């Protein structure tokens, strides 16, 4: 045992050629960062809540079906469900954490002007990239390690083969390594962590979710080809297949996909991304560090020859201040600093939504159609983007002033605290109006194209009212939270993360998951009779209540924000 440990430790120094002193430095720094301990605590808390939810959901269904013999006959099923929940939670969380933790790995060095110092030492680009990547991934692996004992305990219930647990962990690890390397690559060119996170998450949704579904939907004949291309390189599909086989077809683990091949593909892709990062880190990061990057307003860039973007901005006419000054100033910001790239992204998304209409129009009308499902997920994705963008706009409207040191200057003017907050809130809303309007139109479009019949049609149109109320409440909530956290926290990344985190927590744990638990018995009472109508009524009331609760919480957050506006100016 001790000999084995010595062997492992003796390998560690030999890795220094790969990571240099960066790995040690990162580990040392991360051990002092409070956020890592917070992250572990939040991870464990979320995992526990998630397991509890799955447990109670399974128990609710089980009891309704066979209350007397549940404890004995359904243990294996509970075991399967809980392990599946843990594995999927780990799978999603590990990738997300890897993306978040590496999202400022290089941009942080650029911002602190330490990258240029590193570049003057014998440390090479490969060591910088690998040192950063491995040190942060180690934190992710530690998080995965936290839930391993839980997996072992739950296996006592039985029904879950070991190979599923092992293969899932391997898929999770390789997916996290790939996501982390992508995040590191993007952090070379993106200054803000939330930009990196949002871009990767949106890219994942499109490449790993929407695109394969769309291909499958539009060309069902090309199944074999689709499997080989889309499944083997798609961690979500691979994991989905492994889970499906484990739950539905025990003993046929290798039928749909070969997980070792998938892991090899992911590691190969990671190697490619890392190679690209190594190539770019010296070239682009150095130019950014010394002020050569376009679109970066760092002090080193001041007075430098005008970039194309700056020349274009300088050519624009002077606009006179009209109306409330804070709203005017906020509205002067461009729709997106990444201009073309974001517009292309939205165009791709809009195109996909339009394309998903086609099969609905000709084939899959009604709620059960595959086209509807895809369309519904696209709209959900679009909603998420709109909400996250709203969170970013409202939180960043204050933290970006803090980061640029303009906040004290604004507060030294006679503008009222309420006037400043109102201006920021109105501007955040107005800048997001195109996306929110599109969202409302999409909800109307669902109803128009679905052509529900009978009572369902009335219900679907009736449901539009609470949906709009919820959307309005969500807007108030997200703006309120964004401004509150913008005032409380110093960095845009932290404020955006807190805003989105609290919103997601409220939406999915308080208002989503647990209220669903309460609604299950109603749904199960079932059929198309009075039980179904009662379920619909309760569901409708709940949606209205959620919307109003969101609005109330948003107003509360705004009031707190106003009270704290001048508490932490610097």
């Amino acid at each position: 045992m001790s000999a084995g440990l010595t062997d492992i430790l003796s390998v560690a120094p030999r890795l220094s050629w790969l990571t240099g002193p960066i790995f040690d430095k990162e580990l040392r720094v991360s051990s002092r960062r409070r956020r890592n301990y917070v992250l572990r605590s939040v991870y464990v808390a979320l995992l526990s809540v998630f397991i509890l939810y799955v447990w109670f959901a399974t128990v609710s269904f089980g009891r309704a079906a066979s209350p007397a013999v549940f404890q004995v006959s359904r243990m294996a099923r509970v075991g399967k469900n809980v392990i599946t929940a843990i594995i999927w939670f780990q799978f999603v969380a590990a990738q997300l954490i890897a993306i978040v933790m590496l999202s400022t790995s290089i941009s942080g060095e650029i911002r602190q002007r330490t990258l240029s110092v590193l570049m003057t030492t014998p440390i090479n680009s490969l060591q910088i990239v690998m040192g950063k990547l491995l040190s942060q991934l180690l934190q992710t692996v530690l998080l995965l390690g936290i839930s391993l004992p839980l997996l072992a305990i739950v296996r006592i219930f039985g029904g879950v083969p070991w190979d599923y647990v092992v293969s899932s962990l391997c898929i999770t690890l390789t997916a996290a390594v790939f996501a982390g390397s992508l995040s590191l690559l993007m952090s070379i060119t993106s200054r803000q962590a939330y930009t990196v996170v949002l871009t990767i998450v949106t890219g994942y949704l499109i490449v790993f979710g929407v695109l394969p579904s769309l291909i499958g939907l539009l060309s069902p004949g090309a199944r074999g080809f689709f499997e080989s291309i889309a499944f083997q390189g798609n961690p979500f599909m691979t994991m989905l297949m492994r889970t499906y086989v484990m739950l539905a077809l025990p003993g046929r683990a290798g039928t749909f996909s070969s997980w070792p091949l998938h892991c090899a593909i992911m590691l190969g892709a990671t190697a490619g991304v890392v190679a690209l990062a190594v190539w770019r880190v010296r070239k682009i990061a150095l130019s950014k560090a010394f002020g050569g990057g376009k679109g970066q307003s760092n002090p080193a860039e001041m007075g430098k020859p005008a970039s194309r973007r700056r020349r274009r901005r300088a050519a624009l006419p002077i606009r006179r201040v009209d109306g409330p000054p804070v709203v005017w100033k906020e509205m002067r910001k461009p729709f997106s600093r990444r201009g073309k790239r974001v517009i292309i992204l939205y165009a791709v998304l809009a195109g996909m939504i339009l394309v998903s209409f086609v099969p609905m129009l000709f084939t899959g009308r009604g709620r059960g159609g595959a086209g509807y499902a895809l369309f519904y997920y696209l709209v959900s994705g679009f909603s998420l983007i709109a909400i996250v963008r709203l969170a970013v706009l409202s939180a960043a409207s204050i933290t970006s002033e803090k980061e640029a040191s303009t906040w004290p200057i604004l507060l030294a003017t006679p503008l009222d605290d309420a006037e400043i907050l109102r201006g920021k809130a109105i501007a955040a809303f107005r800048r997001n109006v195109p996306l929110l309007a599109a969202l409302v139109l999409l909800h109307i479009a669902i109803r128009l194209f679905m052509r529900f019949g009978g009572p369902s049609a009335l219900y679907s149109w009736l449901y539009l009212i609470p949906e709009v109320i919820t959307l309005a409440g969500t807007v108030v909530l997200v703006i309120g939270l964004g401004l509150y956290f913008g005032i409380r926290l110093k960095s845009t990344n932290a404020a955006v993360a807190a805003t989105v985190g609290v919103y997601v927590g409220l939406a999915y744990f308080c208002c989503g998951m647990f209220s669903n638990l309460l609604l299950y018995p109603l749904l199960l009472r079932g059929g198309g009779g009075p039980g179904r109508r009662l379920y619909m009524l309760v569901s409708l009331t709940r949606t209205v209540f959620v919307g109003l609760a969101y609005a109330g919480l948003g107003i509360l957050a705004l009031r707190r924000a106003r009270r704290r506006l001048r508490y932490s100016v610097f």
Partner: protein
Amino acid sequence: MIKTQNLSKNYGDLTAVGNLNLTIEQGDIFGFIGPNGAGKTTTMRILVTLLEPTHGTAFINGLDVRKHGKKVRRLVGYMPDFMGVYDDLKVFEYLEFFAAAFSIERRKRKGIVEGVLELTDLQSKQSATVDSLSRGMQQRLGLARVLIHDPKVLILDEPASGLDPRARIEIRELLRELKRMGKTIMISSHILSELEEICDHIGIIEHGRMVFSGTLADIRPHLGIQSKVRVKVTANQDKAVELLSALPPIREVEVVDDYISVTFHEGKEGDGLIARSLVEAKFDLVSLQPEQLKLDDAFLQLTKGMVH
């Protein structure tokens, strides 16, 4: 115009400013000096209502900064030590935004903005984006912003830091012009020679406490330093030393290089007596120059280099 009474600001156990008493009269330029971390910036931030004092209070034009924050902000133009800019705006837009923030009527704004642009010599840059300006230009823009609402009081935290010599001279001239316009200016800087040239009064702060406040001339007696003059004669330097040593207000006479250094007894001065005595004794007097106490020397003697 500016007055603080036992002004204190604590951050936990740390006292950033402790019982600070300060008075600045209308139309004065007050130089606020101190080592890094002495409490200058904290004091200024309290004066412009960005920080709440822990104890004591401050008044601007008789208005308590704790009770009349909004009115005080209308009276004061504040330029922080590190001034950020809105990089999406052009110079004209930037200034007009602040004009609007100070509730200046829309029809008057254009003229006012053009006026401050002219005063700060930025007319040619009005269409440039703010982030494209050099550091010196951005400092000028900061001054232009500070002047946009014609404040009675200017509080400038290190306005010349990071500027090249030409820009510093220009800022100095601008401050003199503002003094002529009747503004009360409180300015902090680490370039003491510059403050020496423009300030009427200085305040030296260390460890959150004021160690000296007054004119530069007040420092010498404050430090117990006697007045000195340098005397230069064409010939018979030894006889001149003999003559001067016999004069009653003079404590010490010594030859340094090619001139005679004369030290008076404490509280005594007698430049006229020296000149009259030498001329009456038929010495060819070339020059008689009071030995100035440099602000740098005074600063070094008054402070101990203690920082938080």
